[in-house]
């Protein structure tokens, strides 16, 4: 078990934020940082995933492991995430169907795009396996599967040159913005909620920055220098979010996506804002550790087991939505939902670690 560290801590923080934001309308939503900026926790999550790939495929001394080993490692992780996505989708659909039956309310079946599945199961079940059928609020894992699936390409290019890996990724990103490339949804019209061709840039950025961070301290020096710029961007983000000023997609010049704030395409404004957040908040971890050690420990534990916690968080937030629906919501219910969610996520992380501990300590049969 690794000790609490900044990466796991921020990952845990992103997981909690995503959990709260996935219960729309709840009281605590407005206290999450997602409401006060252009980018949100999804960016943080994907960036840290890229950073973690760097940690996993490079030793502490910066020497990368054998390329074949990295490829197999990422492949194994892809399978793991894919399996989690299928499990979570099945449970979510069962929760929705079960709630519709129990509460005698067909309306629930239409929730989060689930209506497609129940009305059109033959196509939808294929779409589920292909990841092209996604439920609302259940679209981060499909992105994650794809990103880790294509990560070996960037990791291998990065062996020769990190700049080349970043340039390749950046070109795909820019081309996707200009030509509005995205993967299609099926069944049903439309595209992926998170465009993998755009979002890959954040994963690769995390991977590349981790590599540079290991090699030299130029990155650290520059991030200290740019700290005021980060603060300025964060402040600007707060102002724009609170005043609800954003570019009108019908009015901006072509290519449209270079100028809007769209989450689907991780537009440059979101990317820039995220980098600002990164600069402004990177030093915060060191300040927090001595003060709120227990919370740091809790969040780091969540972050260490991010896949399990994320999966459980998706299910718990759907359950929370159903509870809010049936009870009508309100502060007390929201406290109960959020509170039991936080305990549930903590338990999930503890359980996963306990299981792996007890497995490894016992002799194999």
């Amino acid at each position, binding site marked *: 078990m690794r000790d609490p560290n900044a990466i796991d801590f921020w990952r845990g923080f992103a997981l909690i934020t995503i959990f709260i934001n996935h219960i729309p309308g709840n009281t605590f939503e407005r206290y999450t940082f997602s409401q006060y900026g252009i980018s949100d926790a999804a960016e943080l999550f994907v960036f840290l995933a890229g950073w973690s790939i760097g940690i996993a495929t490079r030793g502490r001394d910066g020497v990368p492991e054998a390329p074949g080993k990295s490829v197999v490692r990422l492949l194994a992780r892809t399978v793991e995430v894919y399996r989690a996505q299928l499990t979570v989708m099945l449970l979510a659909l069962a929760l929705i169907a079960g709630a519709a039956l129990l509460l005698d309310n067909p309306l629930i079946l239409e929730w989060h795009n689930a209506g497609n599945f129940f009305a059109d199961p033959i196509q939808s079940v294929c779409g589920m396996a292909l990841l092209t059928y996604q439920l609302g609020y259940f679209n981060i894992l499909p992105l994650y599967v794809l990103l880790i699936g294509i990560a070996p390409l960037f990791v291998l290019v990065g062996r020769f040159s990190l700049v080349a890996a970043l340039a390749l990724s950046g070109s795909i990103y820019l081309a996707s913005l200009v030509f509005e490339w995205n993967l299609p949804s099926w069944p049903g019209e439309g595209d992926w909620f998170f465009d993998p061709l755009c979002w890959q840039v954040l994963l690769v950025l995390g991977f590349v920055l981790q590599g540079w961070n290991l090699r030299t301290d130029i990155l650290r020096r520059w991030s200290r220098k740019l700290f005021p710029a980060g603060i300025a961007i964060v402040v600007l983000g707060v102002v724009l979010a609170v005043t609800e000023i954003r570019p009108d997609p019908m009015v901006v010049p072509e290519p449209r996506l270079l100028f809007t704030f769209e989450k689907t395409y991780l537009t440059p404004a979101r990317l820039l804002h995220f980098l600002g957040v990164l600069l402004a908040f990177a030093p915060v971890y060191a300040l927090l550790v001595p003060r709120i050690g227990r919370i740091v420990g809790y969040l780091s534990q969540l972050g260490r087991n991010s896949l399990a916690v994320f999966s459980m968080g998706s299910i718990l937030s759907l359950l929370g*939505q159903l509870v809010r629906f049936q009870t009508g919501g309100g502060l007390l219910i929201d406290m109960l939902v959020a509170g039991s969610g936080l305990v549930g996520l903590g338990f999930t992380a503890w359980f996963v670690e306990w299981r792996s501990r007890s497995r490894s300590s016992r002799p194999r049969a």
Partner: protein
Amino acid sequence: MAQPQQVIETPRVSSVRRSVPPRAGSVVPRTRAWRLLAAVLPAVLALPAAAEQPADPGLGEASLSLECRVPGAQLYTAAQLGALKAALAENRPIKLLAIGGSAAPGASASYPAKLEAALEHALPKVDVVIDHRGLPGEVASGAAERLRTMVAEAEPDLVVWQVGTHDAIARVDAEAFENALGEAVAWIRSHGIDVVLVDPIYTASMAADVDYNRIVDAVRVVATQQQVPLVRRYEALHYLSRRSDRGEGHMLGRQFRLNDLGLRCMAEHVALTIATSLTRTEAPREPKADPATQPLTGSQRAPG
């Protein structure tokens, strides 16, 4: 224990669906619809039959197929559709963006196909191109932003927006919903694009739910304030459900059938609302309508 039975209910529903006319209102399917109706709802026979097509099929509820027939006053409120009228005057295909609801079941029976059929029936000689998008999520938290993207991508003449269900289920505050919806509708109109709103579905299980009714009311308020046509699906389905309430005792059976029938009726109701609104729209002076409402955000410079 009772649940397996409820599940079995679904195939029966789909068989009812298949017997329903693919092109609502055409002559042959109407006889079939009649048979279905006579079998399921004998009491309805008292209603006047549509012996003749009215001269202008877009002008009254008589153009609706029988099982979808609702008195006009309970069905819609009409308003001007300037952009659509202008598009018609240019003799070009109408680009329609249909938002919300599932695209299922099956390609031929889906809502966009039904809507296209109903519209081409209600507006003969007009070519309608429909782009259908689901919009999961709540209008009050994020979905309104995604809607802007969709509109910017599709650049339609008309947006037909089924709205409110997700916000109602998520127990979003009705006032927050109303503000966000009003803003989004005003934004669409500010770009010379027409909007038709469709309020949430009626189901018996939600009839007494205060929050749900507040959301339905909020949609109506926005339609009135923004002066856009409203398909009062809730009222219409409520009316139809009263008419067809013969107590099919299954837990979900009645509502599911209504839900499915509701999809087809909604297509007809939307078409009728559009056709009626068009007849009440003055001929345009300019190809694109004036921005009817105030601009929204500081970043807006000029209407499209």
